[in-house]
Structure formats: structure tokens, C-alpha cells
């Protein structure tokens, strides 16, 4: 089983709207991170304000004054001015580290770690299998030249022998676009794939394209998987010396779907006010309908989040399991959520390998009895990893 076809009622939107600067931004900050700035300090857009515990830079997404430092850093904005950088090295991985480039598909992994390897295959992922999300599609339509330039640079600098660009086979516009732009490039393969969830997941992609399995990372089988949004962020870092502090997200409202360029730390409230959204009795969800989480109006949108939903959510009633086995047959990692549920708090749990779960939520989605299997398996995963 490679995935399921999820209902998609909206047509994909390719327009990208730029969000105006709001009065206040909240940049998430962990206790383990090192902060370079103090309260009332001035910061510029793109300036380093701290480092994570593994020395990865945290950038300010706006220009302004640090108003408060508590769980997060709250910045009161001023007129925008940009912090200027020079490339410290010509090596791709060094540049990606310098500009804090991370995977924008949802993994949020440090991209430079992938490009430090000598992998010979690059998989450019434009599948975007989460329902109603179209930010990658919009990036492809609007920045295809930049993406092409970056891919060509990567082929040259990283000596990739093969670049596979994957996208949904029902998206004819993308097919035409990639075929036009990469027709003369021998190293690039245009690969339309079934529009199934979660085929966009690294392991599924590598298995589908290369017919091999790996344990921890695609690097084990000589592959690098990068999302198109990440490729575009890499272009901005490599050619424009621009750190990663903003991204395009898809905002799905009751009657429409739009792509918005937002800065790290923009509040949900600001985005919805800007779009004149009807928020009455609506549920706010960040990061997709399958893997996302419920949030409130003051939650900041981070670079990890690819979408914001302000919609009516259907209420489901949990019932008793009928052991139909749908969760098992649809699981992309071939674990057995039913048996995990039955074996909770027993010594049988370890044998069922709940730690393999990728939290794709298919089990909960497909369950006819509406059992929150994802939560159960996630709890089991925590129990086993303790």
C-alpha cells in the first residue's frame, strides 16, 4: 500500500499574496537555545538573534525592538531594514548552514546535513500530498526559473548523476511546466506520481522511485530528498544571501484557498484579519488536516507550518473497534495499530514496533469506528522509547 486518495474539493491556487508587516511578531524560542539579544535591543530583518543548542542560527524575521523574552521572543516592529550578509564559503552545505535553511516539507530538518554527503541522486519533491495545501504548487508556478537555476547549480556543485522531479500525475500544469523547463537537461527525470497520501514522505518516495528501503536516512541509499519550497529557500540563500525567515503557506478558509507569504512568528489572528476571514464557530488548524494541530488566534505561525485552516470540522463519535483491519492494510510503515491498541500497557508492546510510526494519521482517518489510533500509537511510541 503506497497511500490513499484524499478528497480535495478546492482547485489549487497559484497566486502568492504578500502579508504586510504587522505590529507584533512572536518568534518561538527553546530553553536550551542561546540568545544573543536582550530585552529592548534593536534587531534587523534577517539578523541572527540566537543559536539553537546545536549551533544553528535563529533569525529575526522583522525589524524592531525586542519587547519581551519569556517562552518566546516578542518583537515590536518598526520600518523594515535588512541585515546584510556575505557568503562565508562557496560550499553548498556551508551556505545552507550559514543561512539556516531547513526542510520546509514539514520535517524541518537541517538541510545542510543532507548536502554534506556524497549522494548521487536528488529527488525534488513537489508532490504535496496533504489535502488542500498548494504552497509548493504556487512556488513552482511563480519561481520555476529560480528552482531550475538552483537545481542546475546543485548538479554542478554536488555532482548529482540523477535528479528526479516528482509531482502529482493529475496536475497537468506542473507536468507542462517541468517538461518545458527541463526538457534539455539529460540528468533530470520528470516523474508524475500517483496523488496519494503519504507518498510525499521521504521513505515512500525513495521506495517508489529507487525500489530500496533504508533505516534512518535516504543518504544510506545515496539519495537526497528536498522539497521545492526548500529548493527555493536554498536559491535565496545561495544567490541572494537571504536567510530563511519567511515562507509561503496555504490558508484555507470556508469558501476559498489562498497562498500567503508570511514571516516567521506571524500571529494566526493577523493572517485571518488580513484575509477578512469569517472565524465564527470555526476551528483553527495549523500544518495540515492530517498531521496538523488545533491552535488559537494568538498562536504564531512558524517556518515549520505549511498551512492554516479556518474551517468547520466535522465531529466524529468514537466507537468500539470492529477489527476491520483497514488501519493495518493502509499503514505506510506496516505497523499494526489494532494490536498496539490491544497491547497498550503490556509487555507485548515492544514486539509490535510502535516506534516506527511516522504519525501520518492514516489509521485515524480510515478507521470506520473513528478511534483516535494515531494518538494511541503515538502514546505507545513514547512508552517504548522511554
Amino acid at each position: 500500500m503506497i497511500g490513499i486518495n484524499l478528497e480535495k474539493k478546492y482547485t489549487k491556487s497559484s497566486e502568492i499574496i504578500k502579508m504586510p508587516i504587522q505590529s507584533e511578531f512572536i518568534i518561538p524560542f527553546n530553553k536550551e537555545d542561546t540568545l544573543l539579544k536582550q530585552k529592548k535591543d534593536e534587531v534587523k530583518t534577517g539578523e541572527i538573534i540566537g543559536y539553537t543548542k546545536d549551533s544553528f542560527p535563529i533569525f529575526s524575521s522583522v525589524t524592531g525592538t525586542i519587547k519581551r523574552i519569556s517562552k518566546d521572543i516578542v518583537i515590536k516592529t518598526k520600518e523594515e531594514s535588512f541585515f546584510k550578509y556575505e557568503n562565508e564559503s562557496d560550499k553548498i552545505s556551508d551556505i545552507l548552514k550559514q543561512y539556516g535553511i531547513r526542510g520546509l516539507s514539514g520535517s524541518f530538518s537541517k538541510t545542510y546535513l543532507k548536502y554534506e554527503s556524497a549522494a548521487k541522486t536528488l529527488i525534488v519533491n513537489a508532490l504535496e500530498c496533504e489535502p488542500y495545501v498548494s504552497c509548493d504548487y504556487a512556488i513552482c508556478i511563480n519561481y520555476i526559473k529560480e528552482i531550475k537555476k538552483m537545481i542546475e547549480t546543485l548538479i554542478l556543485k554536488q555532482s548529482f548523476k540523477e535528479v528526479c522531479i516528482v509531482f502529482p500525475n493529475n496536475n497537468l500544469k506542473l507536468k507542462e511546466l517541468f517538461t518545458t523547463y527541463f526538457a534539455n537537461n539529460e540528468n533530470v527525470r520528470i516523474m508524475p506520481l500517483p496523488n496519494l497520501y503519504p507518498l510525499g514522505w521521504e521513505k515512500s518516495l525513495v521506495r517508489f522511485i529507487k525500489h530500496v528501503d533504508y533505516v534512518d536516512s535516504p543518504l544510506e541509499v545515496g539519495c537526497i530528498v528536498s522539497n521545492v519550497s526548500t529548493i527555493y529557500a536554498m536559491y535565496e540563500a545561495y544567490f541572494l544571501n537571504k536567510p530563511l525567515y519567511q515562507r509561503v503557506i496555504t490558508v484555507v478558509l470556508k469558501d476559498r484557498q489562498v497562498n500567503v507569504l508570511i514571516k516567521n512568528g506571524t500571529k494566526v489572528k493577523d493572517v485571518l484579519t488580513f484575509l477578512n476571514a469569517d472565524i465564527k464557530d470555526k476551528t483553527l488548524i495549523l500544518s495540515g488536516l492530517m498531521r496538523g494541530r488545533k491552535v488559537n488566534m494568538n498562536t504564531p505561525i512558524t517556518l515549520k507550518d505549511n498551512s492554516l485552516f479556518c474551517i468547520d470540522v466535522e465531529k466524529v463519535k468514537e466507537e468500539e473497534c470492529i477489527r476491520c483491519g483497514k488501519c493495518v492494510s493502509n499503514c505506510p510503515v506496516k505497523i499494526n495499530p489494532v494490536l498496539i491498541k490491544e497491547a497498550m500497557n503490556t509487555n507485548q508492546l515492544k514486539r509490535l514496533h510502535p516506534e516506527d510510526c511516522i504519525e501520518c494519521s492514516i489509521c485515524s482517518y480510515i478507521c470506520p469506528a473513528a478511534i483516535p489510533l494515531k494518538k494511541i500509537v503515538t502514546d505507545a511510541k513514547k512508552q517504548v522509547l522511554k
Partner: protein
Amino acid sequence: MINNQGPFIHNNLTKEKMKKFYLISLLPITFYATIRNGNFKRSFLILTFAILVFSCLLYLYNKLNKQTIKLDYKEFYPVTTILLCYLLYPLSLPWFFIAIPLFLYFLFRLLFFKYSYKKIGALSIAVLLSLLLFHKLGYNTTLLFFKGIGTSIFTDIIFYTFPTILGFIFLFALKSVKWKVPIVTFITLLFASLIIGIGNHSIITILLKFLTSQVLFVVLYLETISFNTPVSGVGSLLYGMFLGLLIMFLSLKKLPFYPSLLAISILPLTSSIFDYISSFKAPAIKKIIIPILIFLILFVILISNF
């Protein structure tokens, strides 16, 4: 209920819909079987009795444990199918044939999983009691399902075989049935029939017997009861092969209570064992079991023929 974590969308195929599809697919054959058996009153009595015992046991269990579990027949599949069993099959089953596999089933459940065996227990006791009662009341004919006076093989094919297969296809198309188990059982039966048929030139007879007898119903419906069949792919495969083997054995040995035994034995057949085996990551175990089962099938055929 809305969780704080995804998914926030849900598949259209709910348990309620599956129940409806299941009932719709069963209606034509149930109707035909009831007319054929001519046991309306008796069937109705058995149905009512089984429902009452099941409800009382659940109620008592809840009271004794001071729980407030709402009784809403969540165990729909076994209940419906077992009740339909009463309608479809004249029962002639010695009690210990049910008791032994039931005992093994619960033992396995208790040893390996903390599962809601209380409900299966209540259901099985209900089945057991009603079976015993009606066995004592004289409902112990050894009539086969479609061997009544005035029927022909063509009537059976038209009113029984086709609706049964179409019902299964209907459920399959709506993704409401576990298709792996019956398909594997069918292949096992076909394989075994072929070998026997080559020996005594009776492939067509065996196949016709299979298609017009209650085995078809057992394979396509009773085996696909969600609740009691394995959930894993490998488990379903093993379970299907094992069941094919059981059907073949019972059929070849010509046991007088074969139809009812077969139908009931599926309920307590320890499907959990197959799930347990298939949950091991080591593929070696799975690889060993399949050839062993094939060998067993051949062995049973050989023994049965001599």
C-alpha cells in the same frame, strides 16, 4: 469529539454505513434460505432468545462491575452473522465441539492480550446457551442447506450462488469486507479440489458442491466477519489457508454435523494466533509457516483419500 491533533477529516466509510451494506448484501440469501428451510417461527424464536441472553449478560456484567457502558450492540458483526447462522443452518452440533475451541480462544486472549474478552465472552455464552437449548428442544436435523424437496441445482445457483457472490462483490466494491481471507480460502479449496478431482475425475462435482453448498456462504460471509478474522495481511493469508484446510478436512471426512460445526468453528477460531505470528518482524517465521500449511493441506488430502 474534536481532537487537538490531526486528522481533522474522516473517511466517509463509517461503521454505520458498513453495517447497512452488510445487511443489504445479506438480505436476498437470507430471504431465500428462510423460505427454503421453512423455519420462520423457530428462526424467530432463536433470534429473540440469542439477543435476550446477549443483552442480559452484558447488563449483568456492567452491573457487577459498576460500569455504565451503554448497550448498543457494538459487536455487530458477530451478532448479526451468528444470528443469521441460526436462520441459515439447521443445527446439529454436540456442545463440546464449540466448548473446546472457545476455551482455547479465551485462554489465548487472557494470556497474550488485555482485550475486551468480556463482550466476546457474553456473546459466545449466548450462542452456546441458545445452541444447547435448541439442540435439546429437538432442533437437531442433519439436513443440508439446499437439499430440500423440490429444488434443483439450477434454482440453488440462481437464488443462492449468484446472490451470495454478488453480495460479496457489492461489499468488496464498497470496501466493506475483508477480501483476503475468502480469496485465500477459495484458492486453497480450489487447489485441493483440483488434486482430488484429478484422482477421481470429479472436479466439476466438487466445484458445484462448493458453489451450491453452505461452504460458499461460510467462505464469503462468515469468514469475513471483521471482528473475528485477523487484521494483518499475513495473518489473513494464514487464517484463510487454515480455514480452507479445515473445510476440506470436514468435507472429505463427511462428518454428519459438518455444516454447523464449520459455521460455528469460525467464531472461536483463534484468529489472534495468526495476528500474533504475523506481528513478528522476522520474515523467517512467516516463510516457514506457509510451506508447512501447504504441506498440511496435501497431507490431509492424502489421508482423506485413503
